[in-house]
């Protein structure tokens, strides 16, 4: 794989605020094309990582390379390749929607005003309304239309649907996925909600306590991990360090293992694991630096 086939590469990326490290030792290589989900609980460092990726923050350690370019360079060319939709989709509240589009046109190199207007017309959002008077879902749609009209190669969204009601959330994801289907854009978005991800995402990054605990292609991750259910036992569970999590009930022990589906020991039953359970298992795990897992997708 050559460098430009990666949408994003980070190496030893870290960010330290006065209070302490928000993100540490983040090394990622995410492929171009498709949808990447960044998952983690509140305060895990998702927003910090995304702001570092789009160049809003400067890293304390390490480097970020987006589409083969160092983001700290911040030239108009590199900036125009990355779109960003911040949390709570900020807009200039006193601008009309048309003025927001004019802002996009004035501040970008390859802004497609017609595209944005068509998208907004399809959603029935009037151009002469002030942005601040629109509903939350409509504001999110305007912000998304603005980011897409920039025609970025990488679109980064920070908790895009967190503040939306279920209907608006559905509509938003529909528009986003429609844009992905039209091709040409890699989408990276963060979320603390895990369900629904399987349907829309190709790639997963799990962040917890400022560290990457799991990253990989979702299909590969699901194929590599299994649940093994057997009689209750508390000894010698970890065969060559493949056990991610062990849960004991009165009579049974359930192991989550990452063993590439080698045959199970006699007396043990193997079951596939749902993505949500997989993510939760990794989030529950206490952090051990050596166990920071990377998967086959980057290989």
């Amino acid at each position, binding site marked *: 794989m050559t460098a430009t086939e990666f949408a994003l590469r980070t190496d030893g990326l870290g960010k330290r605020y006065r209070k302490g490290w928000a993100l540490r030792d983040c090394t990622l290589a995410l492929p171009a094309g498709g949808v990447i989900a960044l998952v983690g609980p509140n305060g895990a460092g998702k927003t910090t990582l995304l*702001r570092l990726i*789009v*160049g*809003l*923050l*400067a890293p304390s350690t390490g480097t970020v390379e987006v589409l083969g370019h160092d983001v700290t360079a*911040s*030239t*108009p*060319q590199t*900036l*125009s390749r*990355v*779109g*960003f939709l*911040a*949390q*709570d989709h*900020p*807009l*200039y*509240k006193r*601008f009309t929607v048309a*003025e927001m589009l*004019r*802002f*996009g046109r*004035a*501040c*970008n*190199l390859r802004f497609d005003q017609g595209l944005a207007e068509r998208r907004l017309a399809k959603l029935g959002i009037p151009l002469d309304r002030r942005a601040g008077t629109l509903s939350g879902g409509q504001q999110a749609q305007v*912000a998304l239309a603005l980011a897409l009209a*920039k025609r970025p190669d990488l679109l980064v969204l920070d908790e895009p649907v967190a503040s939306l009601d279920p209907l608006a959330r559905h509509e938003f994801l529909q528009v986003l996925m429609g844009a992905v289907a039209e091709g040409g854009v890699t989408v990276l978005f963060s979320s603390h909600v895990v369900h629904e991800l399987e349907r829309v995402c190709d790639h997963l990054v799990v962040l917890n306590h400022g560290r990457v605990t799991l990253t990989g292609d979702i299909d590969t991750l699901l194929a590599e991990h299994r649940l093994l259910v057997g009689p209750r036992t508390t000894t010698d569970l970890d065969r060559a360090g493949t056990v991610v999590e062990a849960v004991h009930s009165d009579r049974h022990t359930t192991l989550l293992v990452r063993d590439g589906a080698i045959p199970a020991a006699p007396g043990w039953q193997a079951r596939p694991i749902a993505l949500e359970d997989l993510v939760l298992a990794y989030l529950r795990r206490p952090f051990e630096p050596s166990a920071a897992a990377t998967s086959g997708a980057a290989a």
Partner: protein
Amino acid sequence: MTWLIWRQHRTEVCVLGLLVGMFGVALLVLGEQAHALFPGGAARCAGETGVYEACVASFRRLDEEYGFIENLLAGFYLVPVVIGAFLGAPLLARELEDGTWQLAWTQAVPRMRWLAAKLAALAGVTVALTGMFTAVLTWFRQPFDAWEGRFQYDAFDVEGLVPVAYALFAFGVATAAGAILRRSLPAFGVAFGAFLAVRMSVAMLARPAYATPLTAMEPVPVGGPEEQAGPVPSSADWMIEHGYADATGRRLSWAEYYELEATANRAGTNLHQFLHTKGIQEFTVYHPADRFWTFQLIEAALFVAVAAILIGVVVWRVRRRMI
């Protein structure tokens, strides 16, 4: 960028422009009438040849009819802070409090270019509005200045170059406070407080020391102040200190002076005569009126330099992506 800056800041610019325009026109109209009291120009009346009869009458009318405006004008020392802080406070703070900085700085305009354009445009408006207002005010005050000099606080602080420098200082404080506090209103408050504190301490402590003041020393005349030889220093000069010294030129403390006064009273002699025979001298420490522009330049440079440092801090923070 030009359109964006105008769209984002047109409310402040229009409100300030309207206020400056209204006060400016009012001052022009009133000033026209006040100037009309001096057909030959007010400056001639303050010539060294002394004040003519007609001039005295004119000045008396000026004081009676327009003196109240002069008193009101003293309040206009706040105009620079209103203009500067009103334009500076929202520059970054509004983007930070609404989260739109994330929108503004992820378009294809690099943040330093964005910041440079905003700073240049809004500092330019600050200078233009304050400059226009100060020009009108300085013109309006011409007859008053001819009478009272330009070194008094109600003249020096609102005339010439310094108001523009004050406004830039307020703009710098408000912008920097906005970048750090991330709120427009507190940033405005900080700028207001800093403006009052710095302006007052500079005017009272630093300004007298911009140059070594001159000292005029002469024996107390027999007949008291009425008999004083000449107007040195004149009313246009800026008097810093006034007191008495003995025959050798040693300055007397006020306690010593009161003792002399008491001695004169006990002896039953006329105080001035008593002081005269004792060889007591009267001294005045002052800055001559012609130092006005030197002092204006020094004070303006001081405030512009501080403004530049504050803007430098803002630029540094944005450049380092500390926001």
